[in-house]
């Protein structure tokens, strides 16, 4: 690991959801993901097999993603106008922004634009040593910037 990897993130640093972090975490990813769904969606999911995998067609690009029932529900939820913003914790807001973009790495500046929060506040929160909800700097993006 180069020393550059340890360099401090900036507003240009891209972040993403590192799902492997959840595997080590005491928290359950599915339980957390359910909190981002509406009551109605949560009720619908109760009747389904959560291990079943579907081919989800992206409504804008036509690209196909293999997702489980929660993944599909999250994608559907992300299309709602009120999915991001409103009164919610900053970390939840950033997490939703990344879900909304299909976990495409986003810079702090881009996250600020999507969530309507201050970039400096986002950077202070997710740019520190502690990892929240698996949101981490994206290595590939950082290597490119270097």
């Amino acid at each position, binding site marked *: 690991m180069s020393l550059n990897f340890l360099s401090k993130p900036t507003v240009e640093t891209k972040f993403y959801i590192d799902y492997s972090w959840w595997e080590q975490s005491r928290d359950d990813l599915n339980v957390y993901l359910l909190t981002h769904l509406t009551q109605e969606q949560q009720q619908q999911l109760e009747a389904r097999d959560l291990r079943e995998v*579907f*081919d*989800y067609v992206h409504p*804008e*690009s036509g690209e*196909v*993603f293999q997702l489980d029932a929660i993944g*599909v529900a999250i994608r559907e939820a992300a299309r709602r106008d009120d999915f991001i913003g409103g009164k919610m914790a900053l970390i939840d807001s950033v997490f939703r922004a990344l879900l909304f973009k299909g976990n*495409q790495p986003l810079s702090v500046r881009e996250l600020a634009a999507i969530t309507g929060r201050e970039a400096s506040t986002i950077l202070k929160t997710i740019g520190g040593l502690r990892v929240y909800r698996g949101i981490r700097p994206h290595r590939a993006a950082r290597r490119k910037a270097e």
Partner: protein
Amino acid sequence: MLPAFHWAYSFSIGADDIDSITNLLLEQETPLSAVELATAIIKRREENERQKLKDQYKGTKVYRPRECYAVGDRLMFAHLQYATGKIVSFRQGVSPERAPITIAAVEFDEAQEHQEQTGGRLREFVVAYQREHPLNTQKLSLHPGLAEQKYSVGDILDDPDTSIVEQVNDALENNADLVRLAGTWFVRELMLEVDIGYMHLAEAVLDMHGGGPLPPGQILQEIGGIGDAPEALQVFSLNYYMNQDPRFDEVGPAGKVLWHLTSLLPRMVMQVPAILQYEPLVYDRNVLSREMRQLEYDLDDEHSPVKSPRPDGEVSVTLIFPHRRVGTLPINSETQFIFPDAKTPRIAITMVDALDNQEYPCWVVHEHKYVYGLAPLYQKYHLSVGAFVYLTRTRNPSRIEIEFENFKTRSEWCPVIDPGAEGQILIRNEKRAIGAEFDEMIIIGVQGLKGVDALSKEVRKKGVAITRILRGLVGELSSLNPQGTVHAKTLYSALNVLRRCPPGPMFATLLANPEFEYVGGNNWKLRD
């Protein structure tokens, strides 16, 4: 305005670019400027980029979810920054609504570094999709690089974020096979041989024109040309050979070649007049007060370390004795923006009298910070030391307008330096004929130029200390003033009659020597 993705922003000149422009010079057998060569590179790159895009998009189909495709079909994804890829397989899938769908696996063309945008090399897309999808009805355009260009080569060259011309010059500078003269490049081996006979003829032509300056085209015409090669090549070759011959001096401003016979250049252009020579004095600038620095800035001596912003229009200069004596103008922090620049040590210019449009051939000597050739003009208007001179650029950088606030010659009182028989300095007020507005604190006359010249020569020869000269001047000049003081401006003007010295070292000497007393407002006197 160039598209944001334009190749010119990341342009780096390569060996193939150098080869192509060398070939161009060989093919055209004509010297070309860096701009012309850069233009050729741009046209070539634009064509290459276009061809590359044409090849990439040749036979591709625009991806639309409703369409049916076959394995091996090439697709273009407009919404993924016009990425292209090939269908490698199909599979049947199930949508979240449990409807069967057909999915194509697409292998993208992009190299590894672009995979962040395309999200990996192999990706899946729905095809033969019967449900509504915006991509089925969206109007999808061709890659913008294939569309008609909305910019010109000039736009690329003028864009401040591109550096193609600079890169061409830098790269060719290291190429021993090429020669650069007056901003144009040519292949050394293809230059015409201009033998000594042509050089003699060129010398004779210049001699007939009083030494010059003449443009190479005129010299070429008068010597009857060099063979039947293109004129541009004849000019380039003549310039090259004249440049190697010490008989000729290139005196044109930047971008324009003018030749002059070295032997017929004015002596005061080849050699700095003694009266203008300044041997820098070491002094501590920190001792100078704000008031003194302000005066130093106002006087704007060409040897003072002052900087001025680029002036918008007219610039004024106050003549001091050395410049009035030898008919020169200083190239100071402001006038440097008025006179043309060049890599050559001497530049021939024309000063135009704004009052009667009479022209005066002059010489800019940047290295020694003066412009020579104005003595006839100064004499014509009876200009005194301290006269205000106004300079204005014209559209032609080699033509500068010069103006004075002249009036019908009248007598004015001014201090006059009279070198005594014993070599001492005597100063008294006398009436002198003056022909233009002047600074009352700078004006100073001399009694007997020969005597003053001899005294000045003696001062330089013996290396008379500046303190000693100042002691004499402060004593004499303060005696002419009822307050018994002398202003630093007057002192500076008088000091420069005897020895070239900018205000900074003069102030430092006055401050360092207890013989001198500062009485405020830039006034000095000898301590009682």
